[in-house]
């Protein structure tokens, strides 16, 4: 039995210690908002927050985590889609297919938490998530809009 604190709740489940957090979230905990895109921490679709930092959950084995760490997934970012990033995303119609957007939103939210007024260079550096539909310019605009309204 393993325990993790996810979206404010203790979660008890069974998984081998080498299971990546991504697959624990998706398969043991049913939190499928966090996506599998590459499995090698390249694309960022699996981005979650661990103690507030954006982390690529496909590259974090269960064994590297402890029950005191606060894990937040897209499902726990806000109760009702009201996080400033989610609101800005809705207003600007940022997503296209949307598959990468959970990770994109989690990366943006972590950036804004660390730097409430990010520069373009800050956004360039923090937002290395891959989007194949091509939402990048609206992602940038969305971060700026969320920053202005936070």
């Amino acid at each position, binding site marked *: 039995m393993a325990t993790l604190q996810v979206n404010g709740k203790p979660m008890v489940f069974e998984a*081998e210690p080498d*299971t*990546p957090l991504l*697959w624990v979230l*998706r*398969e*043991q905990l*049913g*939190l*499928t*908002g*966090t*996506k*599998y*895109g*590459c*499995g*090698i921490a*390249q*694309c960022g*679709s699996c981005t979650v927050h661990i103690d507030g930092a954006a982390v690529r959950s496909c590259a974090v084995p269960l064994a590297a985590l402890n029950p005191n760490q606060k894990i937040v*997934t*897209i*499902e726990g*970012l*806000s109760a009702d*889609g009201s996080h400033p990033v*989610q609101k800005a*995303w*809705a207003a600007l*119609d*940022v*997503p*296209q*297919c*949307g*598959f*990468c*957007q*959970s990770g994109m*939103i989690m990366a943006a939210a972590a950036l804004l938490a660390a730097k409430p007024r990010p520069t373009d260079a800050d*956004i*360039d*550096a923090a*937002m*290395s*998530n*891959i*989007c*194949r*539909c*091509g*939402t*990048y*310019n*609206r*992602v*940038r605009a969305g971060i700026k809009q969320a920053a202005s309204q936070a």
Partner: protein
Amino acid sequence: MLHHTEVSRRAFLGGSAGLVVGFHVGQPGAAFAQASPLPPEVNAWVVIRPDDRVIIRIVRSEMGQGTLTGLAQLVAEELECDWAKVSTEQPTPGQNLARNRIWGNFSTGGSRGIRESQDYVRKGGATARLMLVQAAADEWKVPASECRAANSVITHLPTGRRTTYGKVADAAGRLTPPAEVPLKDPKDWKLIGQPVLRLDTKDKLTGAQVYGMDLKLPGMLNAAIKDCPVFGGKLKSFDAAAIARRPGVKKVVAVGDSAVAVVADTWWHAKTALDALPIVWDEGANATASSAAFAAVLKAGLDAPEAVAGNSNGDARAALAAAARTVEAVYAYPHQNHATMETMNATARWTPTRCEVWTPTQNGEAALAATSEASGLPAAQCEVYKINLGGGFGRRGAVHDWVRQAVAIAKELPGTPVKLIWSREEDMQHGRYHPVTMCKLKAGLDAQGNLTALHMRISGQSILAGVFPQNVRDGRDPVVFQGLNASGPEASIGYSVPNLLIDHAMRNPSVPPGFWRGVNLNQNAVYLECFIDELAHATKQDPLAFRRKLMAKHPKHLAVLEAAAKGAGWGTPAPAGVYRGLAQTMGFGSYVAACAEVSVSPEGELKIHRIVAATDPGHAVNPQQVAMQVEGSFVYGLSAALFGECTLKNGRIEQSNFDSYPVMLLKQMPKVETILMPSGGFWGGVGEPTIAVAAPAVLNAIFAATGVRIRQLPLQQQSLKKA
């Protein structure tokens, strides 16, 4: 009479397992979880609930391109309903089959979603409106001509009596549809042409959106698969006993004659067990195939005597021989993977009498056909539930190889739903790749620098030969000439050349081809637009002025080019160190052009600052969605130009994931300014055409900046240090 019959309602509700699948945008699960019977439809396209909610049925797949919202706008425009009350649902391919294809073609590719169905979906909306108005008039015992519908409210003009769509929908659904259904004049459109927000955003922001990969059915198992890494190779043997005791493993199965799958309780267990499975392949005849060896085949095709002409006028060969001056260049464009963010996946449940598949697909009907074939059951005993797509770009349309695999695996576990997910590595190495081609262009110029002759020889892969070989006649693949055709509403060339020959020497490697966003327009626009730029420079003419001389008879091509050039300030000084390049083409029924601004550092580092893009799609249903498609197409097109290449070595694709197949990132993205200039009178697509002008505009700007002419993509293999 169009009735929502008990049979179709039951089909719509699906089996109990369908309960977890939601098709109502914004209401996951609603369509299937609905216990009470659905209210009757007004017609196939429109359902109106007693509380006035409007449900518009959409059968083209939404994969991010916005077609769902655009199609709903088309229906709603004619329906005269309250847009705020609109949601959508997706009939299944099985329902379409059962109702004699009442919803028409499900195929979603070639930027055809809106332009190919605009007429009949608008008629669907207009028909429903006429029936709703008639139902109200019947109730009031007044002529329908005295009634008007607006915003889901019907008013009897002489008396001011009012009712709502929801109140008369049931009666309307019982009426015989009118024979004559006039459509609005475009000048009267209120919703078409408006930049309304998408209908399908909310769930994409909270993790609630269910993609194929996220599906969960009761009792479901998970599968991971490995196909022979060499194209055309076979599975020789595997040692299932070696992984039988790994956690969660249920079964190891051969899939067809070339693949093996592990079925387990979780996908992680299946995937890791598969990685540990000893497999022996029979690599077959393609075991030594390589891109390098095939390049020699392509090169030979450039001068082969046998070729199929796609567009010709005058006598290009004679005119070239007589020309005062000739210019020649050879270009090359590589294989590329679609790399959808969501890898291929499908969930299948098979019994001896029924097969169901849940999958992200660009063509539900083709997925149903694949399900029927793979299951050995007639299509009427099969069903496909389309699940949200994490990208498509052409990969999920023509060939449903992953569906066939999922069904084959499910057949080994009758009654148990099995979800097959491809790893990124499997997805990268078993794609349906952008075709590989080379092109030799030879131009004849007179003493004044006028273009008198052009021979464009394309050598290389045919998509049709790999995907729809029955459509290749006498060695001719018409799709090869996309954007280069003499005339026509789809993809015609924008230049008049007195002596012209564009021909194709088909050369097909072992790498399977596919339709890849932009299709053949991608490389054809690079070839022609970069070469035209070469000719302008060779004759010391301004690239815009040089093009203008050839475009007098192509006013729509020219208009977008002029607009892009003007929008970027062509002819005025660029910022210090910034250089401009132009490109134009026509494809998917639309006219597009781009002007790119780039700078290149002394070390050869490229920065793309801005691209101004002009599009004339005839009619533009939703300008904001068009702008998103232009921006998105540039990410796809520039990823291809900058990085995209799949290479074959020892019969297999060398790239395996995003570390070896890099794509464009946010920090590399230029500003994009979209000029939308719908000239009316036709319907062009917008998902793909602009992708084709991104690369040549950037390449021409790079030449302006450096004097380096890039003729082989991707750019990352080339040095941009000043020539």
